[in-house]
């Protein structure tokens, strides 16, 4: 299918999929369309969509790497948010765009609000003089290569979280909290990240762990939120104690 060379195999079955389509220029409303796809075992949703392109049905969707690295292809598959490139195709799959954001066309949604938030949150290390890293604890390195670098910013957790959507200003969402956690562990960062997390609504997390159960790369943003909250509490408690005994409150987390 599409532009990738693949082993020549005979399709094992014909699957039916339903795609919610919307063309802002012609349809007034979104509507469901049904397509038939020749199926081979372990075929993914994105391969089904590419097959449609090969049949001159150019429905609009975002995709780039097709291997769980770029995070472009998030959509709702059978009601659950996930990456099209990694979700195995099932007979009767219902494919629709993410529900939290306004639909631009077919399966493409408007994610400009998310991009704006990146600037607001200052997602870069706040370097205060320090420019070289001398030593990094092993736990931090492990966390980076297994957790923080794994986040591909695909917005699936944002979709699953019951406490945040495109309009909520109270709580930014699990993905942002994870990125804050990432920076909190970066050796060069000097900003008080646990405090920033609380300010951006980390207390709104209800520990439902939906974000962890839908994350395509197996991360648990809820755990990271928990860790940030714990560090914020510890800070607050320590500062309270210091004030009590007459010392200056600690600046760094």
């Amino acid at each position, binding site marked *: 299918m599409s532009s*990738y060379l693949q082993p020549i195999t005979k399709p094992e079955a014909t699957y039916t999929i339903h795609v919610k389509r919307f063309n802002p220029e012609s349809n007034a409303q979104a509507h469901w369309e049904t397509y038939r796809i020749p199926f081979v075992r372990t075929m993914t949703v994105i391969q089904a969509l590419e097959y449609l392109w090969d049949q001159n049905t150019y429905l609009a969707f975002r995709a*780039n*790497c097709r291997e769980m690295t770029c995070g472009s292809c998030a959509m709702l598959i059978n009601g659950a948010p996930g990456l099209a490139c990694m979700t195995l195709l099932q007979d009767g799959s219902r494919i629709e765009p993410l529900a939290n954001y306004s639909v631009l066309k077919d399966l493409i949604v408007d994610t400009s609000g998310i991009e704006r938030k990146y600037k607001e949150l200052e*997602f870069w290390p706040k*370097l205060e003089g320090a420019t070289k890293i001398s030593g990094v604890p092993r736990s931090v390195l492990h966390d980076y*290569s297994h957790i923080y670098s794994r986040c591909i910013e695909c917005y699936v957790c944002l979709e699953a979280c019951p406490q945040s959507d495109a309009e909520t200003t109270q709580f930014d969402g699990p993905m942002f909290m994870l990125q804050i956690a990432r920076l909190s562990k970066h050796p060069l960062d000097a900003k008080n990240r646990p405090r920033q997390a609380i300010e951006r609504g980390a207390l709104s997390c209800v520990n439902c762990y939906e974000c962890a159960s839908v994350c395509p790369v197996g991360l648990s943003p809820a755990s990271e939120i928990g860790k940030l909250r714990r560090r914020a509490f510890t800070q607050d408690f320590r500062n309270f104690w210091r004030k009590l005994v007459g010392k200056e409150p600690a600046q760094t987390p």
Partner: protein
Amino acid sequence: MAAIAAARQGARVLVVDKGQLGKSGCSPNAHGGIAAWYKRTQDSYEIHMHDTLLSGGFLNDQELVRILCQSASRLVPQLEQFGCLFNRDPDGSYSVRNFGGHQYPRSVFCGDETGHEMMIGLRREILRLGIRHLDEVMATRLVVENGAAAGAVCWDVANGSFQYVKAPAIVLATGDAAGIWPSASERQRGDGIALALEAGAELMDMEFIQYHPTHAWWPFGVRGSVSESFRAEGGHLLNSLGERFMSQYDPAQKELATRDKVSICIYREILAGRGAPHGGIYASVAHLPARLIEERLPVILQKYLNYGIDIRKGPIEIRPQPHYLNGGIKINGNAQTSVPGLYAAGAAAGGVHGANRLGSNSLTDILVFGEIAGRVAADEALRRTKPVPEHREFADQEQRRVAGLMSAEKKSAVSLPALRRKHIEMMDRHMGVLRNESGIKTMLKEIEDTRESCLSQIAVRDTSTKYNFELRDALEMFFRLTIEEISTRGALMRQESRGCHFREDFPGRDDENWLSNIVFYKSDGELRHELRKVSFPSVQMKQFPEYAQSNSPWH
């Protein structure tokens, strides 16, 4: 990287991205590492240079290679300031990983998604510096005025409008053209390279398409390359008899020989009938401790688990697939092309890697030359005293050209997807790992036929203005034909085998006649070519007697 360097110089920068910033192209997919850290005391940038030149068959531009190796180290700490973090050894220094063709391990990495980590840092830095970026906008034409770059016509994929962006200095960091072949890097359609040619720039080494030896082949749903770190961490390549066949082809380097060599060896095994059941070959890390796999190859582990395969327990089936086009736009040490004001960096540029690229050299390439391109381009733009003229008529022209392609009624004689499919399959068959004259001529004929008959018959039936991917495919088809033609003509001319270019009818290396780069350019609308002998300013081939005396295409 270029945008960041340019913004640092104080220039006004606009990043135009065909996809979403930080998510498009192939940089996020890069798994392995950045060859930039000379940790062992015996290692140095000179040895890195030697390795790169040997791998590239000495077709590399030595000046570019020298700059690459000398500047690499200082960029790694800079990335960490942007927010990246690389693996480290217990003593606090960077961990380095070995890659095929490198004498010493020198590649800095983060898990097995170094490229992604790098993109996170770069993307954040762009946001921090407040650099303007246009997402999902595709450049369709570069405008040259009085022999110098003046601007570009950009098509906004999201809303369908055509804009003219005036710019006295343009940096093409658009990636290579691996997507002309059936590649996992399928979004790399060579736009920048084709645009540069039309603008008058020179292209070189376009016939060298590197096949990455290990691409996921089976199960059906798995995509993407299986990183070289799979082999670097100790993975084995096995044929259907369970033998480590690479020990026969290259007893010294085995699986860590250079990619061109490994790909051909795998092909030979498959053609000899010792391949895996679905047309690939086996690769296995099952003999390694599970903890090492979980530590060093977490992404590959997870990816395959999604399809029900545990790489800790059994082999996977892989096959060489097109991965990286070594050639590209010809640049000098300042990332300048032959067109004043036009710069190129990274995979879009050629000359750094010669006939074959070393693993993990690409990330180094894009960082080093990205930085240079941005810096020099910004300098040039700032030194400019005359104002840059606005040329909206070019945008209107493009709009009319595109409107001519759209027609809901015209019964299209050619289906774009079918045409694309046919071409990529033919490119893989005739312009792939094993080439011969008749195959290449068949491809050339197909290109000429398509040019003459099909191009005029392309009709985009989808008339929507927003997110018209059919139109995008159509526009890319023109770029595709340009790249195909140049690559094929180059392969036909080069009657020898070197690096990634292997001719069954000329299986040996011919240093007497072919230590030259084939350079293409357009003059008065005609495609012309030139053979330019490679110069040897610093490293001589006779420093490597074993290589110089053999006529093997590879090192």
